[in-house]
């Protein structure tokens, strides 16, 4: 029996390969994801270990609000420079150096900010003449920068932008762009770039000056005296620290830095694995369907085996063995394809602006084990049902003409079972979405299993839906494509189960794409509505990258322009109130001229009446903490101070997003409470409103601020939506993998169908069908299958989007009709592509051989 199974597999190589493709792609995605993230993790870990190689302990600034990275500018507060002397006097300390770290954009020759593609623009200080043992940087060429006119830059930027030592480069630290001479080009921790981050390095006192940190430090690197353990050093230092500083051993610091990046990488990892899971799930449909068809076609062969004495068990095992061999080979192929895919994914991320460091490729044992195990298990699971069906072949079929597989005993309950499955699946999803007191993991698990079960249920139901769908969707083909079209229509409905399974694989991908598109569309619509109701100025001033905070000086530069009547910025930072973190914004009275919100209490005049202790809060926040006008509210700042405020107004932000944080104070108060205050955006009113001349005038004034730009209301909306679009495109690309797999499913089914209908095709050719007509017939069947997939998938996607939207209190629900039409067109194209190979095979059939084919 083993030989029969293996020889049979060899005899059906093409089918085996087509079946395997689904697994190969899914497994490749798993192994590629692991290889990618492992490699990046290893690279970061090496970098951080190198950076702290000669340091025993590190003091860094600490936000009084806690350790999680800040949302706005990512910088913890600085601490007084006097701490350095105290540390140096400690008995265990051999040497200690203080440093500044901040953010500063490099400006390229074109006058534009050199993009780190999402990575930060880092700035560090060095002590050019002192002890370099703590310095994580190494000079590639030139010297360390000295004095107020010199800078060193990272080797990645230097080579990418073609900068050499001795040339000048613009830097934006605080305020307008300033030109510096490049004194040196450096590497950090042995690599030329930290994930695409740009670096600007100044000498220590210059750094203190340009970042307005005179008398302050951001970090102290410490070496212990011989015999003093790092942990002992930390114990010595801890008591003398101010509240906004913390000390760690160098090892712990490196681990913390690695952990921070790994946290991000784990999210990427899980994200990509989720898509690999979707791809494999689609793959199971393809495999199950292919094996079912193969088994139906081998009915006589299996029956013959039974007449020769094979037991049901042997038949079952022979089918499973066939699947096992396919699974093993496919998983191995996928494993190695994943290595290549890892590089591809990296390129993809770079394209979407996430540049990550790469060192030697890491091919972990875990990767091999997981990829192989998943590939094999998935294949076997998919083969189980067809294998069980194969055991139901009666020996008598061996001698019967046109014997078909008996239907399952449960076949007549199939509609009920399908509806039951869908019902249970939706219930599970509703639990995951709406029932309180469930952990996020359980919630996601319920959603994932629920969604998978919805797909299974719809696939079960699809068998019943296929005949009417084929009739409606095939109408144009039958009407306009003559005999080929109408035969294709009947063929699609001929074996509903087969068409249903094939279309269901595509349905999954299309449903998910639809879900994403509908949610994104809702998000955009509400955001646009919000901007329309809020944005009353002529122009907005934002960062070039649309989201970074911008220096206040850029707004000040616009104020001086003739004709400009209002420039009002919104400061943003973090605070802590009622035990949790909140967004704090700072505004001045003239903001009311450029931003309109509805007031539950107070009025547009409220922002101008805040004074030193006044604040206004959002409606939801007020409700949550029972605040009303007159209520006191204490807000802690990252520097550790507490502001005692009084609520003077409650505003109702529009659904698509609020221009202000939970708590808003006056600009004056904000600037005194926060180090380095920055605007998230500012709004401008100018005489004459939006005109090309005004736009040019404002842009000219921003020449010294390449990190900031001017946008009209519609540009502002478009810019802010770019982030959504980028994410959307990334999701589309990742989901396209599962769509590609389902295309192979269509190819598979068609190839097998052509094989099965050989004699019929011969007859059609004999009675006058041309090759072209044969190809057209197969193509229409393929398109019809794809359209059935779309007809099932798009509604499922919309329903899922409705549920998810309801659960996350989605402000608006809008169906992106244009996008959905594009999906349908894409499904048609997919159908055409999938048909190419099977149609060619069908067209090439020799009429005579086809007629004689048994």
């Amino acid at each position: 029996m083993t030989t029969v199974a293996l020889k049979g597999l060899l005899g059906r190589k093409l089918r085996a390969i087509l079946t395997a493709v689904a697994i190969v792609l899914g497994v490749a995605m798993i192994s590629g994801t692991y290889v990618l993230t492992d490699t990046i993790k290893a690279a970061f870990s090496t970098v951080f270990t190198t950076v702290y190689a000669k340091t025993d302990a590190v003091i860094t600034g600490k936000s009084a609000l806690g350790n999680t990275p800040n949302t706005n500018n990512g910088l913890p507060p600085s601490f007084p420079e006097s701490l350095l002397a105290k540390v140096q006097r400690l008995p265990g300390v051999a040497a200690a150096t203080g440093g500044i770290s901040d953010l500063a954009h490099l400006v390229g020759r074109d006058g534009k900010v050199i993009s780190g593609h999402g990575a930060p623009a880092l700035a560090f200080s060095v002590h050019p003449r002192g002890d370099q043992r703590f310095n994580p940087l190494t000079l590639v060429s030139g010297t360390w920068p000295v004095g107020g006119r010199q800078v060193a830059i990272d080797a990645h930027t230097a080579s990418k932008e073609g900068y050499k030592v001795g040339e000048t480069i613009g830097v934006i630290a605080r305020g307008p762009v300033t030109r510096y001479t490049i004194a040196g080009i450096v590497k950090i921790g042995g690599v030329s770039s930290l994930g695409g981050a740009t670096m600007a390095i100044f000498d220590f006192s210059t750094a203190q000056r340009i970042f307005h940190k005179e008398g302050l430090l951001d970090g102290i690197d410490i070496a212990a005296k011989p015999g003093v353990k790092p942990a002992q050093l930390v114990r010595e230092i801890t008591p003398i620290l101010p509240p906004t500083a913390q000390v760690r051993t160098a090892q712990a610091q490196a681990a913390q830095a690695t952990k921070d990046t790994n946290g991000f990488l784990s999210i990427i990892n899980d994200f990509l694995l989720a898509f690999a899971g979707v791809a494999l799930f689609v793959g199971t449909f393809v495999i199950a369907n292919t094996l079912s068809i193969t088994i139906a076609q081998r009915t006589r062969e299996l029956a013959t085996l039974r007449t020769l004495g094979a037991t049901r068990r042997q038949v079952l095992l022979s089918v499973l063995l066939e699947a096992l061999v396919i699974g093993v080979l496919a998983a191995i192929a996928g494993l190695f394809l994943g290595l290549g895919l890892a590089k591809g994914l990296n390129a993809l991320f770079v394209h979407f602006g996430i540049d990550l460091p790469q060192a030697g490729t890491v091919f972990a044992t875990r990767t091999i084990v997981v990829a192989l195990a998943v590939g094999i298990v998935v294949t076997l699971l998919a083969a189980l049902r067809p294998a069980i069906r194969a055991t139901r072949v009666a020996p008598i079929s061996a001698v019967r003409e046109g014997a078909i597989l008996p239907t399952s005993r449960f076949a007549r309950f199939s509609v009920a079972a399908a509806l039951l499955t869908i019902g249970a699946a939706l219930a599970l999803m509703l639990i995951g979405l709406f029932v309180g007191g469930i952990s996020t993991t359980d919630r996601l698990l319920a959603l994932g299993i629920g969604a998978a079960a919805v797909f299974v249920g719809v696939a079960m139901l699809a068998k019943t839906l296929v005949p009417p769908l084929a009739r409606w969707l095939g109408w144009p083909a039958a009407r306009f494509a003559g005999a080929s079209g109408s035969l294709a229509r009947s063929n699609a409905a001929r074996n509903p189960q087969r068409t249903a399974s094939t279309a269901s694989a595509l349905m999954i991908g299309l449903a998910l794409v639809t879900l994403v598109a509908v949610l994104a569309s809702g998000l955009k619509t509400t955001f646009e509505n919000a901007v329309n109701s809020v944005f009353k100025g002529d122009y907005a001033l934002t960062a070039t990258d649309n989201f970074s905070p911008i220096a206040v000086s850029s707004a000040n530069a616009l104020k001086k322009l003739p004709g400009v009547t209002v420039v009002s910025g919104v400061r943003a930072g973090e605070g802590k109130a009622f035990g949790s973190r909140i967004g704090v914004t700072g505004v001045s009275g003239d903001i009311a001229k450029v931003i309109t919100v509805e007031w539950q209490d107070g009025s547009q005049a409220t922002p101008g009446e805040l004074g030193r202790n006044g604040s206004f809060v959002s409606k939801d926040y007020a409700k949550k903490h029972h605040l009303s006008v007159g209520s006191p509210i204490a807000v802690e700042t990252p520097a550790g101070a507490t502001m005692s405020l009084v609520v003077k107004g409650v505003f109702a932000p529009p659904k698509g997003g609020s221009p202000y944080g939970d708590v808003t104070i006056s600009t004056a108060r904000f600037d005194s409470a926060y180090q380095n205050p920055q605007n998230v955006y500012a709004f401008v009113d100018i005489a004459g409103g939006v005109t090309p001349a005004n736009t040019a005038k404002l842009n000219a004034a921003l020449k010294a601020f390449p990190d900031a730009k001017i946008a009209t209301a519609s540009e502002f909306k478009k810019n802010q939506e770019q982030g959504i679009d980028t994410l959307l495109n990334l999701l589309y690309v990742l989901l396209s993998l599962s769509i590609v797999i389902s295309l192979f499913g269509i190819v598979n089914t068609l190839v097998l169908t052509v094989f099965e209908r050989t004699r019929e095709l011969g007859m059609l050719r004999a009675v006058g069908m041309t090759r072209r007509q044969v190809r057209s017939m197969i193509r229409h069947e393929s398109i019809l299958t794809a359209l059935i997939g779309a007809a099932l998938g798009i509604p499922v996607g919309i329903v899922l989007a409705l549920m998810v939207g309801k659960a996350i209190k989605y402000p608006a629900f809008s169906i992106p009709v244009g996008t959905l039409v594009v999906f349908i067109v894409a499904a048609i194209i997919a159908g055409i592509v999938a048909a190419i190979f099977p149609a060619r095979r069908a067209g090439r059939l020799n009429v005579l051989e086809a007629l004689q084919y048994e």
Partner: protein
Amino acid sequence: MSTIEEQAQPHGPAARDAVIAAHDLTRRYGEGETAVDALRGVSLSVGKGELVAVMGPSGSGKSTLMHILAGLDTPTSGTVEIAATEITTLSDGELTRLRREHIGFVFQFFNLLPMLTAEENVVLPLSIAGEKPDTAWLDELLDRTGIARRRSHRPSELSGGEQQRVAIARALVTKPTILFADEPTGNLDSKTGGEILDLIRSSVDTYGQTIVMVTHEARAAVIADRIFFIADGLIVKELAGASTEDVLTEMSTLSS
């Protein structure tokens, strides 16, 4: 019942208005020592409105002959003319057009499309060619073939005889120049087979349809105007208006 023994001229009496004429056909399969000569120089012609049977034991080359005559296979040498067109050099597209316009087929295993009704199967060659059926002709055809009442049934709901009637109607619907029938009764019981043979004969008598039928059954062959006996790739005998006894005698000579 006159018997024309060892006819001297292979083109026969109907040579002047022949709808199909084959000349010196050979067909060799394979190469070198393993080569098999299925046909070794066959010439024949069929006149308009003639029903010709090709008989012979299995392996005699009768099927190969029919496949070549119908343009499904290409001879190694020799020519075939259908409606004054030399068909052995035609491209696939030209052959397809020839089949559409001039040739009808009836197969042993009926070869109906399971998802189409009887009537849809009948008009299939027309729909493939993008033509509309002539309703009067279709009705008459369905009536004459005896499937008028079963026209909206699918093949799975029809008996074998009914299925072959549908197949014959399908072959006749285009009024082909020539109809090829490959063992049309081979898959039917003798009573049903007899009815099918009556139908084939009557289509010749009523419509003047030209038919070439390949068979190994004597009772099928006797409905033919002429019978060609094939053995080892050659026409060894030609009978006109033969009786069952004549045919059986001839067949037993051939296989002995």
